[in-house]
């Protein structure tokens, strides 16, 4: 067996039984691994209509065939399940070293079923796999949990766990690994909490073998050289992190501001990557086999927000910054640290606070609702306090802990939630960047940027430039990016490797590693297959074209200031074209011939 280890651990938490199964190699070849293969198994094993927080949901921790190899930037794994936030399929992707360590222990995937009667964690050391009591660890925040699990198992163990937010079934809870890396989106941490599963600790001393050593070596060297030679992958991300985008998006008028009430934040520069590098950066940090190092090890000395940890990346700096009308970078960083410690998704947490501020400023919620907390835009101290209250579901934080849609809906105004499929949108205003709006609306996991990052082309001009304000060619662009990313995620590679390499290089890496020939067309078709499988699962779960929408604000209220002033999203012009190009009918349902061509019929 090459690239894949060929083994899966299945844990029935209800009965406490642990079994080891061979990997379905036919499925692995077609769906690659990680996101794609776990989605295929979820499709086969889990009824899409179950309650996501019931024991019937299953939770997959899945690495890809490239995960743990010496190719550049291949340290990732996916957490896959039914999302309690969206009702759609969830696949949250994280870096660090947890995924590679799982491979070195000899496994491609761990599947959790059922619900443990009392808190447990899973301890994996090569062939030895056991469930252990986690009663003494339950209630602890992520750093303490990680330290306790390492103390009980092995000081070199790689730990993935939930914090208080996941234990309290917050629908925006993340799974954290190695303290600062997050499988953040779609509430996967709540599913883990619903199963009384506090964490996984893993140590592996094996290796990942490759099928064609010479071809893999050449492909890895080629990919490394191209990433290093690229100005972005080779130097830019390391120097400034992803937060350097704050000034770019603000300058083109597409930095969502005050809960998407505007697209321009006059003092955004105080929160950008330049300010972060000048004032708070201790050192850049990379994941397993990373040659980019976009991660930020940072420190805040301001006593009001003091701390040391990881982050923020762009989405978090924007969410706790411009979207809340806040330009205090120390407060933004502190909010990011708290999310890491409590196990909360930074994007959904920040934008839920922004939504609450919008509701408050418009008189829909009052001091009586908030317990006396003035939730004005721009109030940095309150913003930080709300993160704590959300993580522990205390006071008004309890109502906010299930995300912006449920918060706004509870007060009769769901239109204040800046979300798609009830998951909060990230840091690019669809009124100023047309293609990303089409992606948000059609993303299989709801509001999300990383499954179709058209910003690379529409704003950054990488590898080519398209005008951000036009809709011409955008459906085609969105589909290409969605398919490419579905395949890339499934290998275990990092999205940022695409600042240097593309489908050709990824197909070459996959071919060398597995020993199975994947052309670039095969690779892209696998992405198309995965996208359509996820779509079919969502349709069976009850989602429809009625869910391929953006908040009305983005369709009707033009951006008020900045370079994109006057723009609205033209989603409704692009969506029918997208469906047709996808091979779907007018209701967004894949046509039989499309499914047949992908082997999904």
């Amino acid at each position, binding site marked *: 067996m090459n690239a894949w280890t060929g083994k899966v651990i299945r844990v029935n938490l209800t009965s406490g039984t642990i079994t080891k199964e061979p990997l379905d190699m036919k499925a692995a070849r077609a769906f690659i691994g990680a996101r794609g293969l776990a989605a295929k198994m979820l499709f086969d094993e889990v009824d899409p209509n179950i309650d996501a927080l019931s024991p019937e949901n299953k939770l997959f921790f899945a690495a890809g065939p490239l995960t743990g190899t010496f190719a550049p930037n291949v340290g990732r794994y996916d957490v896959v399940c039914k999302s309690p936030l969206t009702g759609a399929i969830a696949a949250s992707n994280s870096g660090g070293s947890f995924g590679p360590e799982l491979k070195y222990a000899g496994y491609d995937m761990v599947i959790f079923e059922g619900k443990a009667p009392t808190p447990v964690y899973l301890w994996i050391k090569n062939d030895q796999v056991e469930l252990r009591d986690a009663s003494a660890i339950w209630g602890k925040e992520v750093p303490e949990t990680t330290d306790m699990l390492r103390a009980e198992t092995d000081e070199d163990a790689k730990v993935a766990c939930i914090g208080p937010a996941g234990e309290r079934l917050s629908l925006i809870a993340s799974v954290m690994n190695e303290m600062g890396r997050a499988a953040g989106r779609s509430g996967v941490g709540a599913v883990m909490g619903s199963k009384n599963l506090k964490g996984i600790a893993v140590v592996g001393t094996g290796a990942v073998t490759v099928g064609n050593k010479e071809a893999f070596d050449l492909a890895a060297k080629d990919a490394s050289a191209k990433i290093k030679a690229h*100005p*972005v992958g080779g130097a*830019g*991300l390391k*120097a*400034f*992190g*992803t*937060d*350097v*985008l704050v*000034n*770019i998006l603000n*300058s*083109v*008028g597409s930095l969502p501001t005050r809960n998407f009430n505007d697209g321009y934040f006059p003092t955004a*520069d105080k929160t*950008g*990557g*330049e300010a972060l590098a000048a004032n708070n950066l201790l050192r850049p940090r990379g994941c397993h086999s990373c040659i980019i190092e*976009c991660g930020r090890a940072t420190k805040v000395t301001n006593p009001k927000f003091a701390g040391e940890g990881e982050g923020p*990346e*762009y989405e978090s700096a924007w969410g706790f910054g411009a979207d809340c009308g806040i330009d205090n970078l120390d407060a933004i960083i502190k909010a990011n640290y708290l999310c890491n410690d409590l196990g909360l998704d930074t994007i959904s947490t920040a934008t839920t606070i922004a939504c609450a501020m919008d509701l408050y400023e418009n008189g829909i919620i009052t001091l009586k609702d908030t317990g006396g907390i003035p939730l004005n835009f721009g109030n940095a101290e309150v913003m930080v306090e709300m993160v704590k209250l959300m993580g522990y579901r205390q006071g008004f934080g309890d109502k906010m802990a299930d995300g912006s849609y449920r918060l706004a809906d509870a007060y009769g105004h769901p239109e204040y939630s800046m979300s798609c499929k009830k998951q909060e949108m990230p840091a690019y205003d669809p009124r100023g960047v047309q293609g990303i709006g089409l992606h948000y609306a059609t993303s299989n996991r709801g509001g999300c*940027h*990383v499954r179709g*990052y058209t*910003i*690379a082309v529409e*704003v*950054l*001009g*990488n590898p080519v*430039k*398209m*005008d*951000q*304000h036009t809709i011409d060619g955008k459906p085609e662009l969105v589909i290409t990016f969605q398919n490419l990313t579905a395949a890339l995620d499934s290998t275990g590679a990092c*999205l*940022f490797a695409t*600042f240097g390499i593309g489908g050709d290089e990824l197909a070459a890496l996959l071919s060398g590693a597995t020993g199975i020939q994947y052309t670039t067309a095969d690779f892209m078709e696998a992405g198309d297959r995965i996208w359509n499988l996820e779509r079919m699962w969502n349709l069976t779960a009850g989602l429809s074209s009625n869910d391929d929408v953006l908040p009305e604000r983005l369709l009707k209220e033009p951006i008020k200031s*900045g*370079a*994109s002033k006057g723009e609205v999203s033209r989603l409704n012009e692009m969506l029918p074209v997208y469906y047709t190009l996808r091979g779907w009918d007018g209701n967004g349902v894949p046509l039989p011939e499309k499914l047949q061509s992908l082997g999904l019929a």
Partner: protein
Amino acid sequence: MRIKYFAYLRDVTRVAEEHYITTAATAGALLDELCRRYGPPFAKWVLKPDGSLSEIAIILVNGRDIRDGVWAETPIAPGDDICIFPPVAGG
């Protein structure tokens, strides 16, 4: 006009923005002028080795990316806001 500099460029210009008076009539001519003023440490981020404009540097005139139009030939005027980013990205 007002010129704003970002990321590495601030290390060279020592200012985040400046008011600038020029006779340059196009974005390309302005970039040539700035490259002469700030020298190779500036030029390496916005020009390719052959001296033409980098395809992945982001240059905005009043918030509009010059690559979406006539690029180096984009006309500029005294009241314009110019933003210059070296090749950087995120996600």
